């Protein structure tokens, strides 16, 4: 393509040396010292079992002899600093027009030689301490080993972008894919930008509390005592509450207050967590790939070539339906090199809380002519209601009613509970059935599912890895079946559809997979 142009242009930039011969070995800017120091600390913290006796020893020393503790901690800091400086000095990298070479390590030396065509993906990560320097960390994903990741620890953002551009145009597979893509332009095109308000909505509608709780696990004890102290300041003393002496009314009031407080806290935490992950969210399109950047503390960049997109999801929880917002998820193949990648988060792009119009535009860009929201979805068979009810809601109701009987010893109450629970169950089953829908055309398979919320999903016929048809003898009698499409990112199961429709979809998918010759990635 325009390799010559690129090389000529790159020759002017200070850090990139192109040409047939190898460039000189390059050193890192001083800011990289911070990275190495932090890496040493992280490495140290990673070995917890070694750390615990150390902390105890430190504590007992500090109790008896504060000077010794001071000297010891200074010594530790010195070791950390010396080690990071050594790491910093030992690290160097060089680029040629074919590959990148990285040498690193003080005690355990390593040299990585990475040809451009083996690079699958490039991530630019900007930790918070790089934010004001214009540097970033450049990580290379290669197919295969997830552990042995190569990275340039610190590089000017502009050079990194240029360099990335060059690698992407050099990689032969990428070149052909770009040539095939209809809207191949080199310019970055901003697709979506999220403001703080959108993120607050996202935090409210998508309960991210579990992610937050997982991250906050080490501080649980402290949080508990803090909450108790705050409550006591408001005149609520947890140890003073005695259910027998208080009147029913005040007990109810206290419990209600507590519930509201907890809900508020949960919503707040969820919003904070949404802001931390999605702050300053941008989604850009750069020559047939999507690039997502976001993050409050550490800026993360995920990039996904459009040809690797497997499944697009259009998700709305019930609160999203009320607020008229949508989350869009682009999934790429979850398993690289035969094994499921454990860094699952970096394998998909989530676009948080966008409006219907924005969502339609985005979907249209990723999957042209799909018309996801307005397709005429066919309902699945009504027998799904009976199946859901018998399989899940009936046992659930019986359990509730038995539980009520055991607790309250009242036959009447347990019968009332049974009737109520099974009625609610029927409603739920009907709602799930109502949400289920499927649609296919010459290009796409689309589906709709959900319960209180609503999801749409869609994928290209030729992305299918395997098809599975499931029938029971009862379904067979009514000419029904369940159809599973195995994709590289997840398996989609459409339940209780007429066998003729399923066969039609299978034949179309298999036909496209086997005869279009189009690759799934």
């Amino acid at each position, binding site marked *: 393509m325009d390799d010559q142009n690129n090389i000529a242009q790159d020759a002017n930039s200070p850090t990139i040396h192109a040409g047939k011969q190898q460039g000189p070995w390059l050193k890192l800017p001083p800011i990289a010292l911070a990275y190495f120091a932090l890496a040493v600390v992280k490495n140290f913290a990673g070995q917890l079992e070694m750390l615990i006796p150390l902390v105890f020893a430190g504590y007992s020393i500090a109790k008896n002899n504060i000077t010794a503790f001071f000297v010891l901690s200074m010594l530790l800091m010195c070791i950390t600093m010396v080690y990071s400086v050594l790491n910093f000095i030992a690290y160097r990298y060089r680029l040629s027009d074919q590959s990148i070479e990285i040498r690193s390590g003080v005690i355990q030396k390593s040299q990585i030689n990475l040809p451009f065509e083996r690079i699958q993906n490039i991530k630019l990560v900007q930790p918070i301490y790089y934010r004001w320097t214009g540097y970033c960390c450049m990580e290379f994903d290669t197919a295969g080993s997830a552990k042995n990741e190569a990275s340039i620890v610190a590089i000017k953002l502009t050079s990194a972008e240029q360099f990335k551009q060059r690698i992407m145009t050099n990689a032969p597979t990428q070149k052909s894919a770009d040539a095939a893509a209809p809207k191949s332009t080199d310019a970055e095109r901003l697709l979506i930008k999220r403001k703080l308000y959108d993120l607050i909505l996202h935090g409210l509608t998508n309960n991210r509390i579990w992610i937050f709780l997982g991250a906050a696990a080490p501080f649980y004890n402290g949080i508990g005592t803090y909450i108790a102290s705050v409550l006591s300041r408001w005149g609520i003393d947890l140890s003073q509450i005695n259910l027998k002496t208080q009147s029913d009314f005040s007990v109810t009031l206290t419990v209600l207050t507590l519930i509201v407080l907890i809900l508020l806290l949960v919503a707040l935490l969820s919003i904070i967590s949404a802001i931390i992950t999605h702050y300053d969210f941008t989604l850009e399109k750069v020559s047939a790939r999507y690039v997502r950047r976001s993050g409050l503390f550490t800026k993360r960049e995920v990039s996904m070539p459009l040809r690797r997109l497997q499944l697009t999801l259009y998700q709305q929880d019930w609160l999203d339906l009320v607020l008229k917002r949508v989350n869009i998820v682009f999934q790429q193949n979850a398993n690289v090199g*035969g094994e499921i990648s454990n860094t699952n988060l970096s394998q998909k792009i989530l676009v948080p809380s966008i409006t219907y119009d924005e969502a339609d535009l985005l979907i249209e860009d990723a999957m042209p002519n799909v018309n996801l929201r307005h397709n005429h979805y066919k309902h699945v068979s009504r027998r799904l209601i009976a199946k859901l009810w018998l399989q899940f809601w009936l046992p659930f109701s019986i359990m509730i009613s038995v539980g009520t009987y055991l607790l309250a010893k009242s036959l009447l109450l347990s019968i009332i509970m049974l009737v109520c629970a099974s009625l609610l169950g029927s409603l739920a089953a009907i709602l799930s059935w109502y949400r289920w829908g499927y649609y296919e055309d010459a290009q796409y398979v689309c589906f709709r599912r959900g319960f209180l919320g609503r999801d749409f999903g869609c994928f290209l016929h030729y992305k299918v890895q395997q098809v599975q048809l*499931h029938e029971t003898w009862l379904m067979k009698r009514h000419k029904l079946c369940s159809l599973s499409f195995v994709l590289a990112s997840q398996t989609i199961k459409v339940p209780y559809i007429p066998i003729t429709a399923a066969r039609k979809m299978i034949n179309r998918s298999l036909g496209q997979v086997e005869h279009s010759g189009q690759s799934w990635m």
Partner: protein
Amino acid sequence: MRDLSNDEIDLTTLSAHESINFIPMSGKYVLVRRVLLGAIALSLWVLWAFAAFGPWPMDIIAPSILNIAFTIPCLASLSLVYAIFADPRKGYALREHDLSYRSGLFFLHTLTQPLTRIQHVEINRGPLQRRYGLAELRAYSAGGQASTFAIPGLSHRDARQLREFIVAHKTSH
């Protein structure tokens, strides 16, 4: 049967999924499984009977434990009965561009794996399978471990031929 044609194919004349003819598993596989499961069930019954009516005082093993343990040989017998009816219904089919496998008695599953999406193939043979010349063919796709496409109970010769066909198909497409 397995010539490597690569002719232009009209999509409308493609043989449809519903008209696939499945080849049943090797007769040896069905027989070996029946004998094996039967032997397991029988030995479990013998063990249970020995525990229940053995030459020791009645109260060494509590009757409740015996009653619970009774389910184990029952389950083994049930799986034998299931295998007797379900195994002959298992079948596989090779078309020009995909491989299918059907199984199940009450819950019928029909899996179809396009050959172009297969990443690698392997042949698995346990000690019994080696003794009786049987093999299991496994095809891995990008769908992950959970959707590994496996055909048990092939004769070793068929399994090798299938593997060769798949590999040849991969290199020719």
